[in-house]
Structures are given as structure tokens and as C-alpha cells.
């Protein structure tokens, strides 16, 4: 009988474990890269000739909110659906350099841009796309009634501020030449004006009569959205599926598939759905990777992501009213201490254990596939070396003086590293945070872990709560690699409060058109200089960069992935 009980206990534990593994869903990081842009370059497919017709099932792992317009959406799943039926005027190649798509441009000074639209590009309702639809998008986003988060992409156009505050009826920097040509003047010359500019038109023919405040709730955003992409939306069942069919008047060549069905698939069902062929294409969480790999009918494709994870140190306090770092916190000011804590962590082992081989160790706060990433040969790679960590700690005065097995600080006082990690429903977060504290304890640094509820976590980080000393975080970068928003001393989201005027100067210079002109290499060199500084100073311990993982049924062909995302869905096909 006793044995029997134990059997049931074990069986129940296994059940629970299986369930937990299955439901360890979305990562609770604040920023997910949802700026995936279509790459429409022509591709000869390796899997054979494209075939016409057929229906493909595209999976998403969370219910869409139903804001199917680039100007209004809030979550990445909505953006995925939008990517199937709409496309941007400007595209990005595998080096994240802007490429002409519908619009091509010329500029002499990076302040005034002339854009020309291709003629004959149709909206799904049959109306032709003109530059007026773009102007309409700018004016919508700059309207004081606009309730989405994209104003920063329009703000830099000359006169946008005046339009927003009601001082002007139009945006003065926007000058329509004719239906297919437009001049846009920015408030000042910047190297990244083009990549920052809002690249999606908004269909004036249908949304023109809707007041801006009601747009996000209107049927043209929620149930019958239109775009200029290769597929048009036929039908939406809110919260679970979307039916798209081929748009015959698509401007950029033939479309292979007849239909795409978008379906929400809960993380617990992904593996089964892939195995049964119920879904042809879906982005995977790293935790599902090992389960999907053995499936015979499914290929796993990985491509570089644009996000990195780090362990940050609170080096100061930020005064939000004055936008400056007002106070320096002494505990982690020793560079040797920070470097030692970096050497102490076996990042490769950690990434393999918690990201199942879908993450790479990173030594800088710039994802490796960006054009401005420094090569590892220029940087200290901080290979796992606990002996070196101990040496550094000894040299910096962190030695065990009272014989308790842990080091004291140079004044001989108890030294305990407090480490915070966010907690969501994901059961892997606590062990992965625990693993980091264990690495530190192995070189004699006493560490304490605190798991904090995710929403509270970012609030505490932002307000420099004293209980946050070292913290786990992640950032993602966009198509323009400028890290100012998360690194400069006058930014709220510089959570480490790293304050180095020399480093900030490099970031400013890299954006300064008088210094770098239009030379990308010059810009990259400045960013590399900057990376050398932050690699040496380690205000945060760079841990790993993630790969994006896509599971593809073997019957799907014509797909291509690079750092900018997938190629145009027009090229996808299914084998019969």
C-alpha cells in the first residue's frame, strides 16, 4: 500500500511537470521585437518550383487583440497578422539597411527627403495608393486624439509638434508634389531620420471620415482591415482566427497561395498541432524546440534575433523631473568587482540549459547581426574563468576576513549581492535566476535572489527602488541600431544609471550628421568605440542574445528568413 501511494505521488508529480513544461509560455520581458519587416527580394527556392494554389495554416501563440492596423496595434501577435496583409513603403535587407519597396527616395542632406511612390499600387478595396494616404497617416498619428504609441515616429517631421498642439492645420514639413511624389522635411538633419520615419500609409478612402479618437475601434481596424499586401482579409473570428485570401491586384508579382488561415494555438497544443499537420508555420518558444526537433514532418528554422539579455547593476539614481542621474550608488562602483562577476558566470552553459541551444553568448549590448556590432576580437569575451574572477576579487580587496566562506567588501563588512528577477507564470524563471546566483557563490560572493512580480518589477526598476541592486532584464533593438534610449545618462530607461560622458559623447557623435555625414562605416566605427568602453566597464553583464525560431511543415516552400524577419508571404507556397 505504501508503495502504491508513492507511485501515485510520483505519477502526479510527473503530470504536473509535464503540464508546467507545456505551459511555460511567453517570456515576460518588457520588450519583444515586433518590428519585423518583410523582405521582398526575389528568391529561387531550394525546395523546388513554386506551386500555385493551396491553403496554408499560420499559427500564432496568443489571441490577437484585434487592432489590425500598424498605427494602432499594441502586441506582437497583431503585428504578425498585419504583416500578412499589409506592407511598409520601405523595406530592410539582411543587414537592416533600408531598401525601396513601394517608395524610393533621394536626399542630399538627410533633412529634406523626396519620396516617389510606384504607380498602380492598389489597396484591397480597389482604390489606388497615393502619397495622400501617407500624409493621412502622419496627420492621424500626430493628432492629439490619437491613442496609439507611435507618435515618436512622426515627431521628427518639421511642424509635427505645432500640428499636435493645434497651432497649425497641417504638418508644415510635408509637401505633396503630386499623387506619387512627396517631399518631407525633418526638424533637423539626423542620420537616422529615414529609419525612424513612420513607413505605413493609412487608407484615407475608408478611414477619412472616421474621427481619430474612434479609429482604433472602427470596423476598418477591427473586422474589415485593408492593406496593400499580397493577401486580403476575408473574415475574422475575434480572438481565434483570421482568413486571408490572395489579392489578385497585388503590385509586386504573383502570389502563390490561395489562402492563409491564421489560427491561435495555445502553447500546450503547439507540438501536437505541428505533428498532426494542423498548422504549417508558427514561431516557437525555445522550450518547445527540443520537442519539435524530432518531428519528421517539421523543419525548424532559426534566424538571428534582435534582443539581448543582461544582468544590470544599479549604479545611481535618476531624477525624472530633471532628466539627470542625481546620485551615485557606491556598492557596485568597483569595475573589478563587476568584471569578476562576469567571469564567474558560465554563460554558455546557462544559455544551453535555459534556452535549449537557441541562444548565443553576447559580449556587448548590440545584437551580433547588426551592422554596427563590434567583432568579438575587438572585445574582451569574458570566457568562463572562476580562477580569474577570484584573482580580480582578491586584488580589489574583496576577501573573506571572518572565515564564513564568503567574501567581505574592502572595508571588511558583510557583502551580499541582491539579485532580482521578474516572475510571471513561467516556471523556468526562478531556476535560471538561481543558477546565476550559484555561479557567484562559487567564487565566494554571497548572493540573494528575489523574484518580483513582473509589473511591479519594471516600476521598481524605473523608480530606482533601493531593494533593486542587480537585476535581470532584456532589451530589443530596432532597425536603427542607436542604443541612446536605453543607455544615455539623461534617459529614464537607462536602468543601470550608467553615467559616462565619454560614452554618451560617442553615441551623440554617431547621430551627428556633421560628424558622420552619410557614411555608415564612420557611424559603425563610433558605435564600435562605444561598445569597447561598455564592454570594458560592464555596467551590465551581457548574457545572451536569442534566436528567433520558426517551425515549418515540410510541405511549405519559398520561405526565407533573415534578421529582418521572413520574406514576403507572396513567395510562400505549399506542395500538394
Amino acid at each position, binding site marked *: 500500500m505504501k508503495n502504491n501511494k508513492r507511485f501515485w505521488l510520483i505519477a502526479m508529480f510527473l*503530470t*504536473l511537470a*509535464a*503540464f508546467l513544461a*507545456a*505551459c511555460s509560455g511567453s517570456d515576460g520581458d*518588457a*520588450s*519583444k*521585437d*515586433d*518590428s519585423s519587416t518583410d523582405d521582398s527580394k526575389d528568391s529561387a527556392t531550394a525546395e523546388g518550383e513554386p506551386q500555385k494554389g493551396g491553403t496554408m495554416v499560420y499559427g500564432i501563440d496568443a*489571441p490577437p*487583440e*484585434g*487592432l489590425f492596423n500598424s498605427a*494602432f496595434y*499594441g502586441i506582437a501577435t497583431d503585428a504578425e497578422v498585419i504583416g500578412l496583409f499589409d506592407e511598409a513603403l520601405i523595406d530592410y535587407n539582411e543587414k537592416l539597411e533600408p531598401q525601396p519597396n513601394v517608395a524610393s527616395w533621394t536626399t542630399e542632406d538627410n533633412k529634406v527627403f523626396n519620396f516617389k511612390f510606384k504607380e498602380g499600387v492598389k489597396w484591397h478595396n480597389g482604390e489606388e495608393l497615393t502619397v495622400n494616404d501617407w500624409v493621412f497617416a502622419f496627420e492621424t498619428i500626430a493628432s492629439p486624439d490619437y*491613442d496609439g*504609441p*507611435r*507618435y*515618436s515616429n512622426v515627431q521628427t517631421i518639421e511642424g509635427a509638434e505645432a500640428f499636435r498642439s493645434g497651432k497649425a492645420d497641417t504638418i508644415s514639413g510635408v509637401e505633396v508634389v503630386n499623387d506619387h511624389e512627396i517631399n518631407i522635411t525633418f526638424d533637423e538633419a539626423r542620420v537616422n531620420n529615414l529609419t525612424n520615419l513612420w513607413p505605413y500609409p493609412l487608407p484615407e478612402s475608408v478611414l477619412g471620415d472616421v474621427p481619430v479618437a474612434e479609429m*482604433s*475601434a472602427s470596423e476598418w481596424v*477591427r473586422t474589415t482591415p485593408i492593406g496593400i499586401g499580397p493577401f486580403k482579409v476575408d*473574415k475574422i*473570428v*475575434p*480572438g*481565434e*482566427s*483570421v*482568413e486571408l485570401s490572395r489579392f489578385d491586384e497585388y503590385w509586386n508579382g504573383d502570389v502563390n497561395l490561395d489562402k492563409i*488561415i491564421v*489560427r*491561435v*494555438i*495555445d502553447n*500546450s*497544443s503547439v507540438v*501536437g*498541432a505541428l*505533428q*498532426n499537420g*494542423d498548422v504549417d508555420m508558427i514561431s516557437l518558444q525555445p522550450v518547445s524546440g527540443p520537442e519539435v526537433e524530432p518531428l519528421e514532418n517539421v523543419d525548424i528554422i532559426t534566424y538571428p534575433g534582435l534582443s539581448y539579455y543582461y544582468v544590470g547593476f544599479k549604479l545611481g539614481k535618476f531624477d525624472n523631473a530633471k532628466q539627470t542621474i542625481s546620485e551615485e550608488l557606491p556598492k557596485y562602483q568597483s569595475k573589478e568587482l563587476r568584471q569578476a562577476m562576469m567571469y564567474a558566470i558560465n554563460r554558455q552553459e546557462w544559455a544551453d540549459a535555459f534556452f535549449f541551444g537557441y541562444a548565443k553568448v553576447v559580449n556587448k549590448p548590440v545584437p551580433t547581426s547588426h551592422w554596427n556590432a563590434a567583432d568579438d576580437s575587438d572585445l574582451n569575451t569574458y570566457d568562463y574563468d572562476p580562477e580569474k574572477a577570484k584573482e580580480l576579487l582578491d586584488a580589489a580587496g574583496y576577501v573573506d576576513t571572518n572565515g564564513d566562506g564568503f567574501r567581505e567588501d574592502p572595508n571588511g563588512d558583510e557583502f551580499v549581492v541582491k539579485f532580482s528577477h521578474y516572475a510571471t507564470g513561467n516556471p523556468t524563471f526562478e531556476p535560471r535566476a538561481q543558477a546565476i546566483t550559484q555561479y557567484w557563490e562559487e567564487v565566494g560572493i554571497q548572493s540573494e535572489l528575489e523574484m518580483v*512580480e513582473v*509589473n*511591479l518589477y*519594471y*516600476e521598481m526598476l*524605473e523608480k530606482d527602488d533601493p531593494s533593486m541592486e542587480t537585476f535581470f532584464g532584456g*532589451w*530589443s*533593438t*530596432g532597425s536603427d541600431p542607436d542604443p541612446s*534610449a*536605453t543607455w544615455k545618462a539623461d534617459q*529614464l*530607461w537607462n536602468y543601470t544609471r550608467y553615467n559616462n560622458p565619454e560614452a554618451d559623447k560617442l553615441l551623440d557623435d554617431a547621430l551627428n550628421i556633421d560628424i558622420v555625414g552619410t557614411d555608415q562605416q564612420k557611424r559603425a566605427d563610433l558605435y564600435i568605440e562605444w561598445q569597447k568602453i561598455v564592454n570594458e566597464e560592464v555596467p551590465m553583464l551581457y548574457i545572451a542574445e536569442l534566436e528567433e525560431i520558426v517551425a515549418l511543415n515540410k510541405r511549405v516552400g519559398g520561405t526565407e528568413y533573415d534578421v529582418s524577419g521572413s520574406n514576403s508571404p507572396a513567395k510562400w507556397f505549399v506542395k500538394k
Partner: protein
Amino acid sequence: MLKYTVRRLLGMIPMLILISVVVFSLAKLMPGDSLSGEIDPLNTNPQYIAEMREKLGYNEPLPVQYFNWVTDFVQGDFGKSTRFKVPVADVIKEKLPNTLFLGVTSLLITYILAFLMGMYSGRKPYTIGDNAIAGLNYVMLAIPSFVAAVFAIYFFSFHLNWFPFGGSVDIQVEEGTLEYWISRFHHVLLPALVLGTLSTASYTQFLRNDIIENSRKDFVRTARAKGTPMKKIYNVHILRNSIIPLVTFLGFDFAALIGGAIITETIFTYPGIGQLFLNSVTTQDYPTLMALTMLLSFLTLAGNLLADILYGIVDPRIRLD
């Protein structure tokens, strides 16, 4: 009866005011707000978040916020969902039919199963069959619905291919046709089975005990003495008496019907109130969260009232006034 009903209804008012205070304070006590999830240097900036907080009135003093919320709520304006950017009432209206459909189906399954098992157990108490049924019932009561849901999907959807693994309808069938309704029924069946079979315990045991109790009553002895067949005694005389108290359970099921099955709906990606509730918690969509909590509290109160009134109707011995 009328007097009693009115008195109870009036008594609900202070209760609802208290609930609204609790709901509001709990929502405000939760760390962060609906904008704290939008920290993302790519798409937005700190100024936008500060501006939106001002616009949404998060910077007003709490009593003012509470007063605004309650005044709007009483007038039927539940606010605008911060996540969907449409009025909360519309979001709820969109999900409600799905949840009702699932709720009614699962309730029917529960009734049918509980009825059959309860009758058998009541007629043959303390036999192996009775014990087996009781054991089965309590095991199912103990299984968490999410575990059962994951296993049901794995076994019935992926292994046997009998049911779809998620969603409420196949998007490719024409709306309004017979095929459409068949598809909807096909989709709702598996989650309804999971929910329905797991909650038979209380009904079964209630019915069983009532039948046992009734079978010892004098009218049963009289009927037997007169030579009425046992089958008839159980199926007509006893059953009719034993079903009566069960009717009152309906009142308690009322709120559960609307509330949906939070976890089960999420696992089956079945877009209903339960899934909405869970998502509005994780995305801090306060207007939706508060409206749903108020709605469910109100329905629970109304359900209790309904149960009490039904008691009076089916059993005249109970005096309400």
C-alpha cells in the same frame, strides 16, 4: 413572495456598493497599471506613457477616480478597454455567446451524467457500483481542469483525431448554415466534456442521498405494500421528490455559466469570458477586469436570490415572508 423579493433586491444595494469599493481598491492596489507593459524603446518613449497616464485619469486622486468609475458604471458605461481600445460592454458582448454556449453544453453533460449515476447509486447504495461511482466522482472532482484539458487535447484531438484542439468554429465554413452550427458544436464538445464530467460529483451525491432518504419514507412503504413495481416506485415516486431540491442548484450555476471556465477556455483557445478575464488580468486591462468582476459578483448575488426563490416555489413548506 413579492415582498421578500423586493426586500432581498434592496438588500443587494449596500452589498454591491461594498463590492465595488473592494473591486476598485484591489485593482488600484495591484502593482503597475495598464501602461507598464509598454516599456519598449522601439515603439514608444517615456513621454508617451506619461501623457497617456494623464489622459486616462490615472493621476487623479483615488476617491475622484472611484467616483468617476461608479457614476459611469451605474449609467451602463463600463469604460473603454485599455487593451482592445473599444468599450468594455462591446468586448463582453462579443465573447458572451461563446461562453454561454460552452456553459450550457457542459451543464447539460453534467446533468445527464449526474442523473444517471445518481439514480443508479441511490437505488443500489453501498454496492460495488455505488462505491465505484462515488470514487470516480471524487477523483474527477480532484483533477484540476487544466490537467484534464491538456490530456483531453492530447488524447482525443491529436491521438484519435476526434475533436478539433482549439477555437470555437472552423473559419472556412459559411456563417449561418447548418454546417456552421455543426462545426460550432464539434468545437465546443471537447471543452464541454472536460468541464461537464469533472463537476458531476455534487449533483450525483446529492441525488443519491436524497433517493436513499426518500426510499425509507412511508409513502414508499405504502406503495410497496400495494404491490407497485419497484421500477415504478423509483422512477416516478421517489425521483419526482428527489429532483426538486436539485432545481435550486440552478441558481448557483447561474454565475458559473457567465463566468466561463478561465483556464479551460485559455487552453482550448476558446474565446469566451473566462479567457478574457485571464487576459485582462495579465495585461492589466483594468476597465475590463473591474467590469467583469462586478458583473460576476452581481450574478452570484442574483443567483443566490434565484435559488432561494426557487426553494420557495418547489417546496411550499418553506416560507419566505
